[in-house]
């Protein structure tokens, strides 16, 4: 496949990862931080940005490691441990780099970075990338698209939850219950995008 065809393929994968196959709304990944952090728009924004960045980079790193180290050696089953280590190490490095060079950004993102290590969406994206056998350029598109999709969902959710703060909700439904039901409605809305992309 030539480069331009591959680029357009990556673009399609990116768009479909944002809308039709949103990693949160159709694969249920990254729900815990989604429910925990979506109370405030500011925090949601910071976490969302951090997820986009970390997801894109770790997907690329993991692709290289999987295809050039694990696959030739026949150690595929080892990927769980290696992916987790790569993610943890990457997050640690980014945290140190940000702290050193941009105190402003560190203030905004700092507290969210360690949380990301245990965000299942990050590991999930890497595992999906392996199962679907993406090429390197497609992997970049997929990582970026999944990150943006997660970002959009958490921003929308925190906007809705701020409005909910003053409503009267039955006692058992408060907190996670109502959040899950609203997420269901959002997932329904996102199903509307199915068919936007033919043959993806």
């Amino acid at each position: 496949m030539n480069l331009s065809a591959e680029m357009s393929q990556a673009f399609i994968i990116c768009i479909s990862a944002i809308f039709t196959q949103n990693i949160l709304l159709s694969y249920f990944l990254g729900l815990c931080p989604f429910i925990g952090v979506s109370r405030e728009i500011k925090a949601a924004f910071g976490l969302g940005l951090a997820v986009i960045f970390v997801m894109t980079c770790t997907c690329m790193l993991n692709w290289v490691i999987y295809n050039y180290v694990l696959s030739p050696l026949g150690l595929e089953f080892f990927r769980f441990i290696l992916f987790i280590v790569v993610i943890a190490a990457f997050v640690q490095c980014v945290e140190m780099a940000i702290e050193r060079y941009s105190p402003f950004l560190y203030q905004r993102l700092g507290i969210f970075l360690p949380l990301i290590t245990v965000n299942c969406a990050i590991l999930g994206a890497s595992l999906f990338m392996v199962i679907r056998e993406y090429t390197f350029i497609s992997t970049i598109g997929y990582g970026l698209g999944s990150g943006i999709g997660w970002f959009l969902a958490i921003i929308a959710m925190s906007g809705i939850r701020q409005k909910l703060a003053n409503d009267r909700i039955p006692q058992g439904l408060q907190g996670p219950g109502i959040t899950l039901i609203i997420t269901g409605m959002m997932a329904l809305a996102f199903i509307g995008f199915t068919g936007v992309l033919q043959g993806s």
Partner: protein
Amino acid sequence: MNRQQIKQIAREGLWFNNPIFKQVLGICSTLAVTNLVLNTVVMCVALVFTMSFSSLTVSLLRKFTPRNIRMMVETLIIAFYVIIVDVILKAYWPQMSENLGPYVGLIITNCIVMGRCEACGNSNPPATALFDGMFNAFGYSFVLLIIATFREAMGMGTFLGLPLPYFSSPYWDKWIIMVMPPGAFFMLGIVTWVLRSFEIKTEEKTK
């Protein structure tokens, strides 16, 4: 360790501190497999295994683990057990391994496993940690099985693949939405609501 303590741990894990509707942890990776009861059962067995043994191992190693790298050690212990599950599934039941896709691997980042290792395994003797992990996993499994039963029955009219009397007849219009992602969110929201309301009542009674 006596009977009374085990009973107390069981009550906490199954009901008063249930992982799903009280702690709201670890719902990420397992919601996706609740569209079929069979998938859910396999996933729950995998989870019970991983959670009991990783709690036990963390507890056994708690005196030798340096404080500041314990998260990394816990993750590696969990990953070790998950790899065992994954390899066994791939060898003996490749079809199921394919159905579950990446979700078996995602048990590693399932917050509840890590959460129990942190909360209990780290500071308790091995027996307590083992039972705590096990009963939390049971509490987790029973809620997921309720969700899966409703989703499969209403969405496809079957239970474990066998047709149910009313739901598979033409009188029941199949709710396809139940087997699609939004159905999982609605179902979990409703189950959380119902169980929490009951739980609030029983808590008031015991006070």
